[in-house]
């Protein structure tokens, strides 16, 4: 275990401390999804997955 790994772990733990209160607040106060909302979000995200697979395929040729 070197200093770089310890410093990286400290950085990520600090990031968690920064994110946690915001996550809690957003989790409990976000509006509920209505019908069709999740599918509207999943369509572009699946497009991103397909695009990443395409890029990986292109660079591995």
């Amino acid at each position, binding site marked *: *275990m070197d*200093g*770089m*790994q310890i*410093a*990286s*772990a400290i*950085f*990520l*733990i*600090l*990031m*968690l401390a*920064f*994110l*946690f209160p*915001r*996550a809690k607040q*957003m*989790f*409990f*106060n*976000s*509006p*509920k*999804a*209505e019908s069709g*909302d999740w599918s*509207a*979000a999943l369509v*572009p*995200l699946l*497009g*991103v*997955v397909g*695009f*990443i697979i395409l*890029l*990986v395929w*292109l*660079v*591995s040729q």
Partner: protein
Amino acid sequence: MNNYNPSISTTSAVSINKVLRNTYMLLSITLLFSAITAMVSMVLQVSHMVSLICSFGALGLIWLVLPRTAHSAAGIGVVFAITGLLGFGLGPILNHYLALSNGPQLIATSLGGTGVIFMALSGYVLTTKRDFSFMGGFLMVGLIIAVLAMVANIFLQIPALSLALSAAIILIMSGFILFDTSRIINGGESNYVNATVSLYLSLYNIFVSLLHLLGVFGGDE
């Protein structure tokens, strides 16, 4: 009785368009600025520890300074400081990939891929005008789980987990682009300084994670 007031609706649309325009303008300038600081850092051949110190500095600014300055002109200077530090911190990573035989191609593909993802997702939200604010809690929980797994992987050093985390970060940050853009166009975010930092962080993380994925599958690591 009809409560619809067209003048209020028009004013609101004008102010939303102004936030959107200012956000994209500041985002493009800060991306250019962080590209310049990344080039300076590459030329200076700074170490990974310097890169980490820059990340600490950027986190400190986002955490402690940005909330106090986001509503003043000083906020713009803070955005430049955050993006400059993060760009400078990219230097050692870019130098590492440039040392690979197809390094320049990998970096260019990651950069182009990040741009395509951002434009496609932003275009999708701007066209459909859907409200993705319901995703906020889900995305934050996903991000916390990913960061916890990253901490674990510093000690476990599992390559497959590292790859899975890069893929997960790309998806989570893509979700944040949908979330942040929809918040701007639906009036949930009226501060372009905060909006710029949120979008910049999504782009930064997508670029770094995509570079990692492409480096593993297409590089000679």
